[in-house]
């Protein structure tokens, strides 16, 4: 019996879809059976990030309303046999689905998969309610900005009212050089404000954008630091204990000397 994890954030543009795609891919790399569900009806993106947009025939709303079986709407990933995507409808809007239908679809998927990753739309309205209704666990994505953290805080408050396990936190786009100067929030500030468990953090990496453009999740690329971050998150979801990686990256000789002398690197 699988577990359904909703990836949510409140604020738009912090990387919910990227995180969903990459956690899904990283879990598939570990050989787990994964189903990605895009609930952003009307503004679907997950298929594009996964490079599967050409293969969509049926979608979530078709499956929920019984125009097709749930299995018919699933798209098998190009790279993995154990990774499937249930795409959102593009021609409808969020009101085309209700929480009851969503719950039913997720229940139908659970026996066939180890994890069902639900990509939640931005906002706290109907789309959010749909996405959360089917989930057992929640992952809150935020970036180290005041506004993103504020919205994440709101979402954590709302999630606490649901019958879910305590939400976990992913901090996306962590920048090393800026946080040193106190110009943005640092990871500790974010964690202490939200007061929930940190599942992982992803360093800001241009490779993520390039990979999304190609329709290939960054988690596939073993040389990127963002990819390692996602793979670590996947391992933590599977119950391994993996230490947080340093956001500083590899330091050059001079940077090391400077930090030894107490100067800002």
């Amino acid at each position, binding site marked *: 019996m699988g577990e359904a994890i909703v990836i949510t954030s409140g604020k738009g543009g912090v990387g919910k879809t990227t995180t969903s795609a990459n956690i899904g891919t990283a879990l598939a790399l570990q050989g787990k059976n994964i189903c990605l569900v895009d609930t952003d009806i009307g503004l679907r993106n997950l298929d594009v990030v996964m490079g599967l947009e050409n293969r969509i025939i049926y979608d979530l709303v078709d499956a929920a309303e019984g125009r097709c079986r749930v299995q018919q709407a699933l798209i098998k990933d190009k790279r993995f046999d154990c990774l499937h995507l249930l795409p959102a409808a593009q021609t409808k809007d969020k009101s085309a689905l209700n929480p009851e239908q969503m719950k039913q679809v997720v229940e139908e998927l659970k026996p066939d998969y180890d994890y069902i990753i639900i990509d939640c739309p931005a906002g706290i309205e109907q789309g959010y309610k749909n996405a959360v209704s089917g989930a057992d666990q929640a992952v809150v994505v935020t970036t180290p900005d*005041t506004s993103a953290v*504020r*919205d994440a*805080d*709101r979402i*954590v*408050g*709302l999630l*606490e009212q649901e019958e879910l396990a305590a939400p976990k936190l992913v901090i996306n786009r962590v920048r090393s050089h800026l946080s040193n100067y*106190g110009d943005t929030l640092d990871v500790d500030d974010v964690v202490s*404000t*939200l*007061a929930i468990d940190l599942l992982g953090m992803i360093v800001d990496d241009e490779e993520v954008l390039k990979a999304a453009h190609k329709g290939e999740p960054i988690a596939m690329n073993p040389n990127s630091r963002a990819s390692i971050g996602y793979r670590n998150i996947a391992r933590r979801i599977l119950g391994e204990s993996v230490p947080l990686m340093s956001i500083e990256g590899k330091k050059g000789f001079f940077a090391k000397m400077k930090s030894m002398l107490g100067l800002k690197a």
Partner: protein
Amino acid sequence: MKTGSSKNLVTIKGTKEGLTIILDDQCSFDDLKVELKDKMARDKQVFSSGPEVEVLVDAGYRYVNEEHEKVITDLLEEAQAIKVKEFHSEVITKEEAKRQREEDALTAVTQIIRSGQVVSVRGDILLLGDVNPGGAIEATGNVYILGTLKGTARAGLEGNLQTVVSASVMEPNQISISDVLFYAPDRYEKKQSGPLFDEPVYAYIATPEKEISFEKTRLLNQFKTE
């Protein structure tokens, strides 16, 4: 003790503060009205001139509702010099008693008040947790926070100026006590972010400026006994 109509239903007593009018609490209200009318008619010349006298009305164990209060006040104030200052009764309604109990109570809440959440109580509130930016904590009495106040706190919601907002770590967006407001200094003016003080403090209304000031929490006993 005399009983029946022979007893004086209305007694007027002079005290240091002025006059106290003691009303019998066993007779019917109508009898009381008649007696009061008589008395006022008889003593009219005594009260009709001279300086204004403030009067306290003591109704004993009689429950006096607003309507009765008005009837008695009107009767008394027929004499121009009399000004009814206060009604005193040993009896209150259950509703009033419940309200008073709430006002005196301290409610303990264990949670993190997150953005968009508002926790509001009657009386005092003790929060075991933080108030995050965008969240609000409100009380008609005092607000005590064992944690960090980063959001909004409102004490003395119904106008009590003697209330305080106390927090272990004071880093608020906004504090209000009764109708006096305090905004935190802008993030850019402040040289660095972080708490306003490096120890627990409470916010109170400083007189006579009527502005919100802060003082160390360990000095709160001085404020309370003032």
